């Protein structure tokens, strides 16, 4: 059976900006405020709705941060689940276009 793809996109309801390599993220609907470490920031910045999560992990995380792919994939999935629970990332098994007009913060 072919592996299912996960696509992630940044919600249009959020505000985000990098501060010294770490991303600040705020959800305007409930004012929850987060800071993401460098790895989480890389995933967040790559969340264009078109690149499958496993490609982001392989190309952006394992390449840049020299981490084991399986561990990185598990951590990334946990991170994505947490941020989607807060309405910051949108997750789908199909490519998403909702964030196509957003700049990368």
């Amino acid at each position, binding site marked *: 059976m072919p592996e299912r793809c996960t696509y992630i996109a940044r919600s249009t309801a959020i505000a985000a*900006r990098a*501060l010294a390599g770490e991303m600040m993220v705020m959800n305007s609907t409930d004012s929850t405020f987060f800071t993401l470490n460098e790895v989480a920031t890389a995933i967040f910045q790559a969340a264009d709705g078109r690149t499958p999560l496993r490609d982001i992990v392989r190309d952006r995380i394992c390449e840049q941060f020299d981490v084991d792919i399986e561990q990185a994939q598990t951590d990334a999935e946990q991170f994505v689940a947490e941020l989607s629970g807060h309405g910051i990332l949108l997750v789908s098994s199909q490519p998403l276009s909702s964030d196509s007009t957003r*700049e990368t913060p």
Partner: protein
Amino acid sequence: MSLMSEVGQKAFDLGVPIAVHLDVTYRCNERCVHCYLDHDDHGEMTTSEIKGVLDQLAEAGVFFLTFSGGEVFLRRDFFELVEHARRLMFNVKIKTNAVMIHEAEARRLRELGIDTIQISVYSHRAEVHDAITKLPHSFERTINAIRFLREQGLRVTIANVLMTANSSDHAGVQKLAAELDVHYTLDPTITPMMDGDTSVLSLRIPGEELTEVFHNPALVGNQEEFCAPPKPPSEQDLEGYSCSAGHSFCYISPYGDVFPCVQFPLPTGNIRQQKFLDIWNHSPEMKEVRSIQAKDLTTCSSCSHVSSCTRCPGLAYMEGSMRGPSTADCEKSFYRTGVPTANMLQQGLSKPRSTSGNTVPLIQIRPLQIQPIEVQPVEIPA
């Protein structure tokens, strides 16, 4: 320290302008009796100029962006500017009198993901509010707008400016805010006119009445803590800086002038002539503001209040020296704690000079309450 404070401190230490207040116009449809602005348009930035400024601010690391005025909705391109700002992923707050907000505008603001809309309400009594704004039916229109915004689930803060005409109305406005399910902030800000005319200052509540305000738990929270006598300053306090102005915050006028703060009229450059980051990083005035530590202050460095005083360097600058005391803050420190200030002692005064008349140039009381923000860190292991 909350995550938000940590981030603010980090921006301060790195000199990143994390927050900017941008006035997009000084024009207004109200004529509030205490307002300090010249409402004529002397050449506001165009739509494309402001969009260019927003691009530069995003690049400079600005996260919190406040659009204010004048009345922002008098700009026909206001939604276009907000859309651009949200595309750049700013956290956007808007200050408005709200009289031009109806259902459609409220819906659009929700769609754009605005963080907070701050609205001035002077009284729970329509006749008092309208007499201050000098716009008939403004109370009704403003309150209707708040309802439209709340129907959209938007966060609204009522800013209640206290002055002689409404000094006893804060409890009524607080109750109204609770009924409307919005935040309340006491914002008794009376600032001189831009042209230096200080006549509006006679509208502010007299210093003696501050004692009552500062000892009211409904307004200040833990009153005992708030009014506690000052602790002697530590070495660390004397190494500290006044506030975020010029460190992690600045103000931009509708004409592109950049200042350390909305209440610190020291010109540091104009964005029509220079890049924002050139002004922020290299302006000699910005650098000077940034260099001043508590130990460098002429009178305040020897004042027992120095570590807890709300001393505003902008007000001190308007009084003559950004390193000097701010009489309005001396007054607040004294009426809050009952302990004389160094400024008073130097002048041999047993109570502060009154800053409510026309004789002394400046008065500002900063908000006593800020909206609480839920903060949750998320990290995944590297």
